């Protein structure tokens, strides 16, 4: 009777120990910092002001098309 109770207690203790040790392995994906860039501190790029230029967009689109197979 005592040995049955003792083995059950040992199993429970082992299970408790296992749960306790595995707790340290838990890692939340949301805790990881994937990307946190700083604010750009350099000088301005004139290309950025040109970004909306329809003329340049058309020229680029024409070039894109040139990459298709003939």
């Amino acid at each position, binding site marked *: 009777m005592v040995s049955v109770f003792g083995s059950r207690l040992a199993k429970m203790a082992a299970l408790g120990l296992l749960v306790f040790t595995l707790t340290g392995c838990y890692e939340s994906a949301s805790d990881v910092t*994937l*990307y*946190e*860039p*700083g*604010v*750009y*501190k*350099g*000088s*301005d*790029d*004139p*290309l*950025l002001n*040109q*970004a*909306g230029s329809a*003329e*340049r*967009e*058309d*020229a*680029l689109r*024409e*070039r*894109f098309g*040139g*990459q*298709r*197979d003939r």
Partner: protein
Amino acid sequence: MARMKFLCDAERCIECNACVTACKNENEVPWGVNRRRVVTINDGVPGEKSISVACMHCTDAPCAAVCPVDCFYTTDDGIVLHDKDLCIGCGYCFYACPFGAPQYPQQEAFGVRGKMDKCTFCAGGPTANNSNDEYAKYGANRVAEGKLPACAEMCSTKALLAGDGDMVADIFRERTLRRSGRPQTWGWEQAYGAGV
């Protein structure tokens, strides 16, 4: 607004290195720096595959995340550029980049690397467009002239595609369908191997 990307079709790349030469020639890249290079897998073995690799202009660029002086910026077109006047040549971006894109021109005593240099998608840098200063620091600014990068436009087999991500994906999809297959850059077979 375009989101600029590169894609190299491994089925078409013939390892001619014309893209590397075009890049070096167009941008006057110094000795010891390769903004673009061709990597061959299973070289010499039947079925070898080559791809041309440079800065992939990541949407979530890890180089920008680790830069201690915040010298990186992304244009509205999605091109990742940097300011060489700010760069301290620490090399953090090299460690962060999964493609080995950042290059350093100097190898002197005491580990002095010089300012980081990388592919600019032929879009220059933060100086006056197509000025001598821009050319000396960053190379040609073809994008400002409505042109695509020299490497892609020079590719004889059109293996290296550059341009708006959607358009590049569309061209690649057309090709793979014509090859009577499905795109193998992603999917089950790519992840787990054929026959699994």
